[in-house]
């Protein structure tokens, strides 16, 4: 399964990454691009590193299928601040790495779950409340249709 062929990937900041082919293929984008000549992927350097670390780990673990270890490692991996999480999300989306996308989405969902109420969610993610007072009241009332 693991081949010894390495692909060289250049990031936006002109850093070259040597990544094993089997890992590079985790990214749908790279997979398609590999067939095209002279292609470049524009991703910020720091998050390329992160992405490949995760992809690398996934390929290794595929052979062991140890779910507990995987999630342990992943939860530590995703304990970064909002900016990094956002970058990771964008990078994963651009490179089209399914497992990474799921991991980041889950982390964001967990953060939302841990928030006590709506105001805390807005603060954590820096979102402005753009509802009119009346609209917000209407939604709160409708929320009562589903008590259970």
């Amino acid at each position, binding site marked *: 399964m693991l081949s010894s062929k390495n692909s060289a990937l250049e990031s936006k900041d002109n850093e070259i990454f040597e990544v094993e082919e089997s890992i590079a293929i985790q990214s749908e984008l790279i997979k398609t691009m590999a067939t095209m000549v002279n292609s470049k992927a524009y991703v910020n350097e720091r998050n390329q590193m992160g992405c490949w670390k995760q992809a690398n780990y996934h390929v290794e673990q595929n052979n062991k299928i140890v779910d507990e270890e995987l999630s342990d490692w992943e939860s530590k991996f995703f304990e970064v*601040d*909002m*900016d990094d999480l*956002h970058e990771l*999300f*964008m990078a994963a*989306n651009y490179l089209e790495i399914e497992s990474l*996308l*799921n991991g980041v*989405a*889950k982390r*964001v*969902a967990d953060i*939302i*779950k841990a*928030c006590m*109420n*709506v105001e805390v*969610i*807005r*603060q*954590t*993610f*820096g*979102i*402005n*409340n*753009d*509802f009119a007072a009346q609209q*917000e009241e209407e*939604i*709160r009332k*409708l*929320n*009562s*249709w*589903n*008590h*259970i």
Partner: protein
Amino acid sequence: MLSFQSSKNLLSLTEDLLVRIYELLAAESDRKSFRLVCREFRRIDTLTRRHLRVIRIEFLPILLRKYPRLQSLDLSACPRIDDGVVSLLLTRVGPGSNSPILGHWAWGLKSLVLSRATGLRFSGLEMLARACPCLESVDVSYCCGFGDREAAALSSAVGLRELNMDKCLQLTDVGLAKIAVGCSKLEKLSLKWCMEMTDLGIDLLCKKCVDLKYLDVSYLKVTNESLHSIASLLKLEVLGLMACPLIDDVGLHFIERGCPSLKVIDVSRCEGVSSSGLIFVVRGHRNLLELKAGYCLSELSTALLHQMKNLNHLEVIRIDGARISETSFQVISANCKSLVEIGLSKCLGVTNMGIMRLVSACINLRVLNLTCCHSITDAAISAIAYSCRSLVCLKVESCNMITEKGLCQLGSFCLLLEEIDLTDCCGVNDKGLEYLSRCSELSCLKLGLCTNISNKGLSYIGFNCLKIHELDLYRCTGIGDDGLEALSNGCKKLRKLNLSYCNEVSDRGLGYIGRLEELSDLEMRALHKITGVGLEAVAVGCKRLADLDMKHCEKVGDSGFWALAYYSKNLRQINLSYCGISDMALCMVMGNLSRLQEAKLVHLSNCTVEGVELALRACCVRIKKVKLFAPLRFMLSSEILEILHARGCIIRWD
């Protein structure tokens, strides 16, 4: 997280990423919060919502208009849904000539749950079946008045794959025939308690619906002939025959050569079935995954055990009530190592040795039922804990030799434990609860009749087991207000609580209960120290309270009942028997609580006959079941009894 560059916040993510996040928020409360954050999030919610469960029927038209992409609709909690409402939902045009026809929500609908919608009749069902062309799954269980006309209405939904008609008591072979002919793609059918069914209906069903994968005919008076017909179903995987009185070993013989795809069979409580019958089933289906034969076998015969050696893929076995020998344990542990669930409730001959042998082989065990296996001690529990680290549910009711030593092992190794039943285990004490509380995933804890536990033990649970949904403290007389304080501090997700006969609980304790916002089911019989103050605290705080049993709470005064009538708008069932409620308060409670469907009002010593009559009149529109003091049968006016009867209300006399 102080100064956020606006370009980097969550909103700048594309729609499909936001949808991904939204779909990972499984809990309804999280989705509600999501909806309220900002406009974009609300738009995501509207776009993605595929499933809707409605409680207040007033909001139904608005909601159906808001969510155009519904695939599944659950109306089982709307008691007043009837043909008129359905007609309104499907044909009404909104205000203004340009607004869309309301009925378009039905175009994509795949699943419809109408369980207990007793107000619906065949015309409403027919409208629904015609309006929803993509309908694949319908649940009309417990609609006791449903019969052949309703079945005919459902048969016009040609694409139907799944149908649940449990307890549609008027359904006969004629109705089933219509469904069999109309819905030939049927894959899953449940007909439990449809007592009018006979072999003829089943025979036609098996001839027409050849794709059936799941068939449940539990409790029906069908004979072995039906099994002969069922045996011809080549794709059948799950067969339910629970408590079928006329099925016996001869019928099971047909199954031996038939139903080649059979994976799950349930013959629990079938009096005519014995080991010989099961031998036929097992001999013909070596890939059987689930064998449920509780309370029908007297023992596992040698011949049956010999056949069971081939069941190497068996995942679930239930042989409750049988006599189990050492050989049985040997055979099962040697050959059925994939077992995930074992049911040995009320079995004779269950020993420590047997259990230890079993669990050392079946390490993937997740559910183990040892109710009333009195010989079990800490040694067995330790072995279970050590070997079966994935254990999720353990039932050891009445195993009174279990002490804190066994619970210590559970708390150390079975960290995935979610449900444990220690009812009547008098060996459980505070130390045991301290150890048990290490299982932080615990969601259902039954400690009924455990008289040796006190507030101290409960406080460990309140501190560590934050995911608890259900707690049974029936007759745990050592529990008092302090324990409830600890509980209310930590177990915020508590939904079901039983405090009956915990005499030390007073108004202060109920004040803490009032802090449990998710509480929906509260049983607090015979609490002699509580008054109206306590009940008021519960009514005000527990907004989701749906089921309240306060029989024999004699000191509660009217102030509590007034609060109940005013605040507890979600109350569906109430037991006020032997309470000191007055006429006025009773009338307020029965009249104001618009969702009340079931009430037990036996022996209200402060109420007069006129008062009870007035209260019944106030609620006769929606009340479905009521239990009254027997002498009242001759004292209440015949008029009110007729009205109740006409509305379909069931009256029980005590």
